[in-house]
């Protein structure tokens, strides 16, 4: 079961050997940095005012007023960026025919999938790791509680893991990268907004729609609350998407 490793290394080489990783990193850090600076400036402005009017800033703290909006904003930005990391993974191999060699090497489909998925996940984790600069900066100016920050990051990592698994699945269904990228974005967006429907949904549908919504599960994590319900959501989401990807790869081998 070590067939995933060469695939993982190959995918990493491809991410960094082509402009993909650099472009995604540059723009994600630019946009999240912009968010951070704006939120932080607003926060310092509020702090200044609370200095003069004490009743104004009773509930002011950096977790609630900086990290939470920052992480939530980053999760929205990921909706756009994750499809660009995953759209290549299978679609390009199918288009160029390299899948024919990859699937005839002595490795299981599961190992190929694991290598590819873990490569995308590692790249994403690295990207997320770079944004730890922002809480680091906060810690430079003031005292912070690291617990809720790290749990927030864990939540964002898990959200990204679900996004990536959906991206891998959609990429395995088509040989067109644009279709893979846009399809992933569509599916993710649908899961993002499905919770909005719960307002007007009646009966049993309401909790179902609320549970399905991807964004809502991040909320607890950003407050420092790790709920089993949310963990189950993320893990089962990744599991289902990867299982379906395996089926989709295997469908080539169905007799017909």
């Amino acid at each position, binding site marked *: 079961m070590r*067939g995933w490793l060469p695939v993982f290394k190959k995918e990493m*080489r491809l991410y960094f050997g082509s402009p993909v990783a650099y472009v995604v990193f540059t723009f994600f850090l630019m946009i999240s940095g912009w968010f951070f600076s704006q939120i932080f400036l607003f926060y310092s402005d509020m702090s200044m005012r609370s200095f003069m009017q004490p009743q104004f800033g009773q509930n002011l703290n950096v977790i609630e007023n900086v990290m939470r909006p920052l992480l939530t904003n980053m999760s929205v930005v990921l909706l756009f960026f994750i499809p660009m990391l995953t759209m290549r993974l299978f679609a390009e191999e199918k288009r*160029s*025919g390299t899948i024919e060699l990859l*699937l*005839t*090497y002595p490795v299981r489909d599961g190992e190929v999938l694991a290598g590819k998925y873990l490569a995308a996940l590692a790249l994403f984790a690295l990207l997320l790791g770079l944004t730890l600069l922002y809480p680091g900066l906060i810690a430079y100016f003031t005292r912070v509680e690291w617990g809720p920050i790290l749990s927030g990051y864990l939540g964002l990592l898990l959200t990204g893991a679900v996004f990536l698994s959906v991206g891998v699945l959609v990429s395995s269904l088509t040989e067109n990268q644009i279709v893979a990228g846009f399809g992933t974005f569509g599916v993710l967006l649908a899961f993002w907004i499905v919770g909005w429907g719960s307002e007007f949904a009646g009966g049993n549908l309401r909790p179902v729609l609320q549970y399905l919504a991807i964004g809502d599960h991040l909320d607890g994590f950003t407050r420092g609350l790790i709920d089993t319900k949310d963990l189950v959501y993320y893990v089962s989401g990744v599991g289902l998407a990867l299982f379906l990807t395996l089926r989709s790869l295997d469908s*080539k081998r169905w*007799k*017909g």
Partner: protein
Amino acid sequence: MIQVDNLTKTYGPVEAIRDVSFGVEKGQIVGFLGPNGAGKSTTMRILSCFMPASSGSAKVAGYDVFSQSLEVRRRIGYLPENAPLYPDLSVSSYLDFVAEIKGVGRAARRGRVADVMERCFVTDMQNRLIGKLSKGYRQRVGLAQALLGDPEVLILDEPTIGLDPRQIAEIRSLIRSLAGQHTVILSTHILPEVSMVCDGVVIINQGRIVAQGTESDLVRQAFPTARIEVRVAGATGDVGGSLRAVPGVLKVEPLAPRDGSVGFLVESERGRDVRPELVRLVTGKGWALQELHQVGMSLEEVFIRVIAGEQDTTETVVLEEQAR
């Protein structure tokens, strides 16, 4: 080493191959010959475990390609049509990846990669990105990855396509040198390639095997008689009849007259050379002998004859033109 029985593959209503059966002995090189779209690639994709057959069975090294696919894949080196590779990797890092995925240990990897690069003449390009290579180099990198891991069986789909004549010669001698230790099945539509490289031939057309055996077997089957073309000038009387009377001659057919000479196609018993008799006859009659030669019975003609038997005449003409 390779045993294929009644293999059939359909894509929806389209039948790609039907009832294909053949066997390849260990250490042999077998050429898979057929016009484009005959089903060569489909057969190779089934053998390489890329896709399953609709019915029938195929065994490589004693393992079934469908139910024991992983065992088969450990023992084959596969070069798909057009050598699909990753354009964004360099030659050496690509081959390193292939060696690792084929289970070549870390310690041996560097040496093995250097060895196949040497054998396939790509060492001088090892740091280039594959996407920047010419078609010929890409093809050779494809061959190099197939050789990695020292597989018992090599499945090569058109290995010399896109190469220049000197490279073709090099690759052919490389493949030839694999005989003995490796079993090779290669597809091609270049007929002389089969004569030069292969021990056996399988001719496939429209998804069906139409002939198989060694080249000399096929020639004998397709042309049971030896054929000689004779042209004489200044002849009078019944030339054809005189030729027919020569002992050993089975059949005489007139050919179109040319430059005042008359020509005949003489068929004789195989293994009996009637040419000296024919010369004696012609000179004895005082005719001028313009031409006398054995009509070649190459694989090319076998191919055309066998394929022609399968298709209507218009297609045959096209094929003959292509073959020329």
